[in-house]
């Protein structure tokens, strides 16, 4: 983003990362670096492996070829659980529970930032008044916001957001951007996929291009 952030310590580094499905290359070899306080936009056509990349970084998929470094050391799945929060296409919300209950469980499993009170989240996220409704009664955009509430509360350093702008209105898109800016200002890193042209942040983000 800004020139100063290039001096920030490295958070994540990929060297010649490749992934195969049934011996067909999905993407790669891919090289990129992500520093603390940096937000990178992962771009690519449908099927170029954006989601796959995020699933690998989250630790859900096995690295076939190449190297993945976390703060300069070999990335290991179990060592970095909790440092990473992954917002996937499936939002991980229980439809029968309310947004508040869903968030309480996420905080129970992942922990919460010390200075965050769960109650203040709903105003920030634009869901106040709906936090006690079962998630199944919320609209698609409201469900997305309920999932985004995790980002505010959980203490992760790296955010992996798969299509966070989908289903959101103009205010919602601004909300995601604001969350990302705050996260970057705290020294966190984020990888964001998007297939559409999104008016992104104030400045120009880092871009990682995916091609098969």
């Amino acid at each position, binding site marked *: 983003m800004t020139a100063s952030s290039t001096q920030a310590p490295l958070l994540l580094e990929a060297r010649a990362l490749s992934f195969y499905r049934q011996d067909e290359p999905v993407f790669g070899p891919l090289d990129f670096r992500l520093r603390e306080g940096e937000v990178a936009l992962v771009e690519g056509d449908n099927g170029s492996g954006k989601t796959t990349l995020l699933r690998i970084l989250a630790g*859900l998929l096995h690295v076939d070829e190449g190297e993945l470094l976390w703060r300069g050391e070999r990335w290991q799945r179990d060592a970095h659980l909790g*440092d990473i929060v992954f917002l996937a296409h499936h939002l991980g919300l229980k439809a029968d529970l309310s947004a508040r209950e869903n968030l*309480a*469980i996420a905080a129970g*499993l992942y*922990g919460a*930032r*010390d200075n965050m009170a769960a109650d203040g989240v709903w105003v920030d996220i634009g869901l106040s008044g709906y936090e006690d409704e079962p998630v199944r009664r919320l609209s698609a955009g409201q469900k997305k916001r309920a999932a985004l509430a995790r980002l505010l509360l959980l203490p992760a350093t790296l955010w992996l957001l798969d299509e966070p702008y989908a289903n959101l209105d103009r205010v919602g898109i601004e909300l995601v951007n604001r969350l990302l800016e705050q996260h970057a200002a705290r020294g966190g890193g984020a990888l964001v996929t998007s297939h559409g042209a999104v008016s992104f942040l104030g400045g120009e983000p880092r871009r990682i291009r995916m091609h098969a």
Partner: protein
Amino acid sequence: MSHAPLGPACAALLRRDLTLAWRRRGDIAMPVLYALIVVTLFPFSLGPEDALLQRIAGGVVLVTVLLAMLLALDAMFRSDIEDGSLEQLVLAPQPLALMLGMKILAHWLTTALPLIVIAPLLAGMLHLPTAVMPVLLLALLLATPLLSLLGAILVALTAGTRRSGMLLALMLLPLCVPVVIFAAGAIAAAQQGLPWLAPIAWLGAALALALVLAPLACAAALRIALDA
């Protein structure tokens, strides 16, 4: 920054699964109804002869409970896979085996426990002698958690596939043969007035072993099945 401590994490997960089950209490009743229907069918097919029903009562109740559990087994992780909460659980900074153990416990509490509660009723319908009832309950209390634990491993293995309940039954059958043999053996022995402690002890030993190993195997299986 603080990571979540283990105890509250376990409690949160257990409470979530129990809350979810409670909000859909109708689903809890289904296996119970199924077991009632199956047991009712036996006198119709074999005739209402007391001596015959009495002889098969223990085995029938046991197999009925097993089938009812098999019916509910498929749902253990399904909704969690569909809405993505299983991924969130796998990525949480908690020991996965223990978290899955909590899910298995919740599943046992919501499916097997109601079946055990009505087991005396089922056995009574088939004229099982009252004296044998405690042995039946003891056998069920040991056999059903074993089935939940073994079943969880298999359900985890099929997590990455399109659903097929028949495959689950096929995979579970060889694993539940020893469980059925020992549980039914204990009931039969009690009914004949023979010592029944040995098979119960075997079941207990198997359960102790499964309590430790099955969640670990379940976590490993889930990692394999999700790696897609």
